[in-house]
């Protein structure tokens, strides 16, 4: 039983540090998600209704973001921007990189959501003499918003897990804090079991939230 007491004492002693780190992880997620959603909405709008060359360029940007590792995107922001005379804190580099990558995935979801509803409803609106802009804001977008609620939730769960990558650019989030505690105290891998439970708790809570929103929005769509 002795080892159990030792482990429990260890876990108790690292809790304050872990709570600080949890704040960092949550902060990154809380800033990156809204940024990703707004960026994705802009990208989707330009790809659907914007001028062709810009739409195509954004298509290329999306593919680049989706098919390269998040860590390298962070490295570019963190190590390359200072060379252009822009020094950005690691925390914000993490937020930006995560927002960029997730906006690329979300933009495609948004575009898909708008494309699947539109055609006949656009035509119906036109036949009724409703202007295109009115149809977009009052007819198409509200339906699209309901449709993308669940995908945004699922993306949020992936996003929370992706915040761990900021460990690679020296931001003291849950993961890097776990590593530092482990190395300083010669503690064992149990520290990472504690870290894992933090993430698990977050993803489970978000999963429940997503399921709640999903059932609500499904009821709205009918």
């Amino acid at each position, binding site marked *: 039983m002795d080892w159990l007491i030792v482990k429990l004492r260890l876990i108790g002693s690292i809790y304050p540090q872990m709570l600080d780190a949890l704040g960092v992880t949550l902060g990154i997620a809380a800033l990156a998600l809204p940024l990703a959603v707004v960026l994705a909405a802009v990208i989707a709008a330009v790809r659907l209704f914007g001028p062709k060359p810009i739409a195509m360029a954004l298509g290329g940007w999306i593919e680049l973001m989706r098919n390269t590792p998040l*860590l390298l995107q962070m490295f570019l922001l963190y190590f390359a921007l200072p060379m252009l005379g822009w020094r950005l804190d690691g925390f914000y580099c993490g937020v930006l990189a995560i927002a960029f990558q997730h906006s690329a995935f979300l933009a495609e979801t948004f575009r898909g959501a708008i494309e699947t509803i539109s055609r006949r409803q656009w035509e119906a609106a036109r036949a009724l003499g409703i202007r295109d802009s009115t149809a977009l804001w009052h007819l198409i977008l509200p339906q699209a918003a309901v449709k993308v609620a669940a995908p945004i939730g699922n993306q949020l769960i992936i996003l929370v897990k992706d915040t761990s990558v900021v460990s690679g650019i020296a931001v003291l989030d849950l993961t890097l804090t776990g590593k530092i505690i482990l190395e300083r105290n010669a503690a064992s891998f149990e520290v990472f079991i504690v870290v894992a439970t933090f993430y698990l708790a977050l993803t489970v809570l978000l999963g429940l939230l997503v399921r709640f929103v999903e059932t609500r929005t499904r009821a709205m769509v009918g």
Partner: protein
Amino acid sequence: MDVLVQSLPYLAKGALQTVWMAVVAIFVGSVAGLVLGLAAVSRFTALRWLIDAYIFLTRGIPILVLMFITYYAFPAMGYRVSSYAAVTVALALYATAFYTDIMRGCLQSLPRGQTEAAKSLGMGRMSIIFDILLPQAMKSSLPPWLNTSIVMVKSTSYSAIVGAWELTYAAKEVVERTLATFEIFGAVMLFYFAICYPLSLLSTHLEKKTAVVH
């Protein structure tokens, strides 16, 4: 540009390491995912629960954390394992969870009527699984399988954080030595892109093809 040319052999070695790790993880994960996916729709309740728990635990944490767990757990349990092996084990465990989930979903989405029809024709259990259900499930699992494989290729880069040498780690070393940040990181990004983009094109193509059938 000179820097890039000079460090190309070194980066190529890293790229080889990256591809090797990804291939092992994807292969092990696919085979294990196939077996566990079948087990997940079997009659053995305890087995189904275990698989559920495994998927839940693995998918609920970041792959980087799983890498740290295997990286530190093997030595703590008295095994001397190389850093590559530890990271690759984590990648394979993660891939297994995703592929199992995909395979289970594809098997479950097949209409029940097929199994019933096959039974009424007197086909045996094994024959129903291997001749009827599995071929269809494997076909429909191909697009998500490709998407997960892309995630796996991209995830190998996280071993640079844990401390296993591969392409991203090599790139960081070269950048620290030469300060050619844009060239090196840009080139390495393009390498990942060159692997992942064709896979994603194939996935979208297959998705469209199967969408027409339904």
